[in-house]
Each structure stands twice: as C-alpha cells, then as structure tokens.
C-alpha cells in the first residue's frame, strides 16, 4: 500500500481503493474491529469514516485538522474511545488526549483503552461541568466535541472559552436531530453555526453525509 501524509501519523493509503489510516500506537491491538495493515515494517489502523466523524470529514474533503504530534487535545463525548484512539495515534506518546465521557457504561471501555494507551487521560463526568470532577484539565491545543445533546453548542462555546489556547482551533460534530427534531436539519445547523460565529471565527463546515447522516463538522478558530 502506498501512503500519502494527511496529518501527523495519519495517511491516505492506496491499494486499489483509497482509505484513511493512522499509525498504530499499540501494534497488533485493534480498538473497534478496524483493519490493521503492515506497511514498511510499521502497523497502521484503518480510520473508518462510518465510525468516526473526524474521518468522515476528511473523506468529505475537509482540510486536515490542526492538531499534531505532541499536542494536548481535549475531547468531549469520548464514548468508548473509537475516535479517541485515532486522536491518540496522532498526538503520539509525546502528546495527551483528555477524554471526557458522561456515561459509565461507555466509560468502562474508555478506561480500559486508557490502560494500554498511556496518552489518554479519561475523565468520567459531565462536559457541562468539567470543574466538578475535581481533576485538573490543562489548556489545550485543540478541542473536539461530539455529544448528542440539545445544548451541545453552548457546552462547546463554554469549554472552548475555558480550555482552548488563544489562536487554537476546535471542531464540533453538530447533530441537528438532537438540537431540534422538528426543523429542517440544514436550518438547525445554520442557526448553530451562526451562534458559534458570534464567539469565534468559523473556519469550515462540512456535511458528513453519507458517512454520518444529519451531522456536520464545524471547525472554528479562537481569537
């Protein structure tokens, strides 16, 4: 397979068909049943766009996100760690992913994942009130949020203001359905994007169809 760099430790692999892969930080270990590839003595994991919205955005032609090796990333809505594991590949052992998840059921997988990937710092708690968890979260180079809540945009704005370093970028996976079931999804996304633009500069908005239905990834920059 031929590799073309996308972000640190992330590549488009070509062998007949094009697919996104990330350098496996824990060789021979799969996280969610993804395919593993051996290329030039290194192991890569397929980054599945149907399972991960960041991957979907890249498949849809988004420009590479700004986080890189050694960065500190704050990840809100970590779930069992599917996407977190790829972010962990990107920042590598030199970086850190602070991964916040509210549900203890999802948290179990996330915690077990963190035991083999030492750069994941799991936090079980509500992204609305990270301070209540009573554990330190430092300023971060990149913030990513994927939580299906009605107030997701407000949660994102609050946390970007609080934790993202000035000049840093952040991305939110917006799910129209969880904000407003009755209105046209495109209109909902537009409203939310407008809300974001009152606090930050909106850099890009990517509709993730057909990989993720009713979802958009919106990227902002903090002034």
């Amino acid at each position, binding site marked *: 397979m031929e590799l073309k760099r996308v972000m640190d430790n992330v590549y488009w692999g070509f062998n007949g068909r094009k697919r996104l892969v990330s350098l496996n930080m824990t060789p021979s270990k799969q996280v969610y049943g993804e395919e593993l590839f051996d290329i030039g003595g290194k192991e890569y994991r397929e980054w599945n766009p149907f399972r991960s919205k960041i991957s979907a955005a890249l498949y849809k032609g988004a420009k590479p996100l700004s986080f890189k090796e050694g960065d500190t990333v704050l990840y809100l809505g970590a779930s069992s760690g599917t996407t977190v594991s790829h972010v962990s590949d990107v920042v590598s*052992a*030199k970086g*850190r992913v*602070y991964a916040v998840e509210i549900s*203890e059921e999802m*948290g*179990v997988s*996330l*915690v077990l994942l*963190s*035991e083999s990937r*030492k*750069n*994941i*710092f*799991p*936090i*079980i*708690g509500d992204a609305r009130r990270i301070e209540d*968890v009573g*554990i*330190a979260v430092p300023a971060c180079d990149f913030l990513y949020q994927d939580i299906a809540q009605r107030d997701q945009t407000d949660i994102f704005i609050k946390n970007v203001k609080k934790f993202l370093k000035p000049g840093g970028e952040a991305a939110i996976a917006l799910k129209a359905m969880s904000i407003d079931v009755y209105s046209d999804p495109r209109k909902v996304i537009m409203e939310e994007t407008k809300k974001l633009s009152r606090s930050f500069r909106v850099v890009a908005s990517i509709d993730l169809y057909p990989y993720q239905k009713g979802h958009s990834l919106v990227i902002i920059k903090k002034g």
Partner: protein
Amino acid sequence: MDDKPRSDNSKYVEEAKKRIKDRLSLDDFIRKLVAMDAETKKAENTLFKALFDTYFLYFPEAANLIRDKEKFVSTLSDGIKREEVSSRLGIPANSMGYDLSETDLSSISDALSQLVGLSGLRTMINLKLSSILEEKYINLFKVAGPEIASKLISLSGSLKSLSEMPSGKLQVLGAEKSIFNGRKAKTPKYGVIFFHPEIQNSADRIKGRVARVVASKISLAAKVDFFSKEDKSGQILKKMRKEIDKIKNGT
C-alpha cells in the same frame, strides 16, 4: 503530578475507575433487573404466540380452549399429544388439524420447556427484586409493594430522584410507557401505581382520588427510605388507609 513523566495517565485512570464504581449502585442493579424482567416478559410472549400458533395447527380444537398462556402451559406440560390432551380437556382426540410427526411434536415440547424456563426466570428476577427492596427500602417495599417500587426506582433513575419527585409526577410515572399500550387512553391519571391494590380495589369513580393518596404516601415512603432508612411503614400505611376510607365513605 506535573513532575511525573509526560504520559503518566494513571491518576486519571484510577479516578475514572473510582467514579464508575461509585456510580454503579444498587439502584442501577434494580434498574437492570427491571429491564431484564421486561425483556424476558417480551420474549415469553413472543415465544408463546409462536408456540400457540404451531399447536393450533396441530390441534385447533384444543388450542381454542387454552388461549390463555398459563392455561396453555399447565394443560400441555404433561404431554402435548392429541390422545393425552383430549382426555385432559374432555374433547374428542380426532382433529381437523395437521398431523405432525413424533419429531415435530418433540420440538414443540422442547419449545414449551423453554417457555416454562422463561417464566421461571421471571419468577427468580422478581424474587430477587423483592428481597432487595425488603432489605434496603423497607418503606417502599411495604407501601408500594416490591413490583411497583422497583419500577418506580427504575423509571425515575434512582431512589434519590424518586424521593425528590413531586407526588403528582410520581402518580403518572410510567404512563407513557409500553406497559400501558392499549390502556393508555383510559388511564391518563396513573402510571405504574395503577396496579396498586388500593387503586385496583377502588370503584372507578374514586380511583383518581385514591391514586392521589397512594402516590403521596409512596412519595413519603421514598423520602423516609432515602433520608432515615427507618421503618415508618406502619404509620404511613395507617394514614393511607384513613385517607382512603374517608374518600370511600364520601366524607
């Protein structure tokens, strides 16, 4: 922790484990058991329907007489062949049904034991729920009864949220859920407390007012269980009786 090497996440992992452990509580166990009971009940009904239809094909004259699940199981548990069942029901053994082979019949027998197994499982789950409630939430156990109490805890999420809930809301808790399918239109005034014996045994015209009393006493029981854990059920039940009698006597 900042002077440790850059990728030592062990403090976070330990803290996360602790938080998960703290949150997986007795109330969660109750919720899971209630969910398991509901799923088992669904499985039981699905299997019963399929089994009934198959048996109907073989011996419609008998099947017609045992449409009720309990009756179906008790009638067939000692043998399902026409010769056996006909004498048990006092009907002729010759039938309009389709003749099934020995092996087909033994498959039906196997399925029947699975059905019996499912209902045994439900009995076990409910015994477990009952003993948990009796041991840990004695006031709810006595005032609401174990079945209603565990459903209320499950629906509200925890004893804490149940104890904080206004009794008007407690009264209709579960009304929107599937257990009320079909009955929904008739009983918007009650949720799971509808099955409380005090409500069941009241005349229709006073059911609503009785439900209000029952809900308020269950709410009180939840508060006592949450705050003091003392057994005050005797007093609560006495008060409940008195208020319901008042309604019944029209005073």
